[in-house]
């Protein structure tokens, strides 16, 4: 069964350092989402891609976060510089439909757990 891949699974860094997370969605999935899940809370959307284009990045802290999906396949989320409050699980999800619709099931990867010291 096809899965969303994410790496690394765990990352420990010191504040002010740069970190990057990678996501490879299920093959053929056009829509890709990055969520942040703070401990004890539900996931919150950071950025949504349709192919290589950003559809929604209204919740992305753009002074320190950036995301790209250059070829419309895999994606990278970067934080520079990292802050203590960035400690969280970063989840990637994808959906299969070429046209974005709110009815589609989002398939989630295992996440990257980030700890900023």
């Amino acid at each position, binding site marked *: 069964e096809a899965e969303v891949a994410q790496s690394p699974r765990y990352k420990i860094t010191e504040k002010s350092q740069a970190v990057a997370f990678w996501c490879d969605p299920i093959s053929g999935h056009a*829509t890709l989402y990055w969520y942040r899940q703070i401990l004890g809370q*539900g996931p919150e959307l950071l950025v*949504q891609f349709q192919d290589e284009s950003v559809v929604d990045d209204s919740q992305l802290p753009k002074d320190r976060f950036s995301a790209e999906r250059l070829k419309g396949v895999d994606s990278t989320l970067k934080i520079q510089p990292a802050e203590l409050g960035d400690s969280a699980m970063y*989840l990637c999800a994808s*959906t299969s439909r070429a046209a974005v619709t*709110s*009815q589609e099931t*989002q398939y*989630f990867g295992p996440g990257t757990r980030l700890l900023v010291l």
Partner: protein
Amino acid sequence: AQSVTQLDSQVPVFEEAPVELRCNYSSSVSVYLFWYVQYPNQGLQLLLKYLSGSTLVKGINGFEAEFNKSQTSFHLRKPSVHISDTAEYFCAVSSDRGSTLGRLYFGRGTQLTVWP
């Protein structure tokens, strides 16, 4: 904008007992409703979803949920739980109107713990 309230942060229950996890949503437009499950150190997996039609939705692992428009609720139920059902459960809502298409709004989650 949509929002989701999960009324119980933790639900302890004995094995083979029934369970209900409560979810209420707030939205001024028609919504789609989802329940996801998250096992420790894993991503989220879809349990079931309501798009339209019958208000009783059946999902995987013996779970079901009932959509109640008048009470704006979408409670999750299982008649007999197993130890393996221990996990975090998230209710989520999305809409084709008034928000970015495909965007999910999640509740804070309910930790279900099944005791032997």
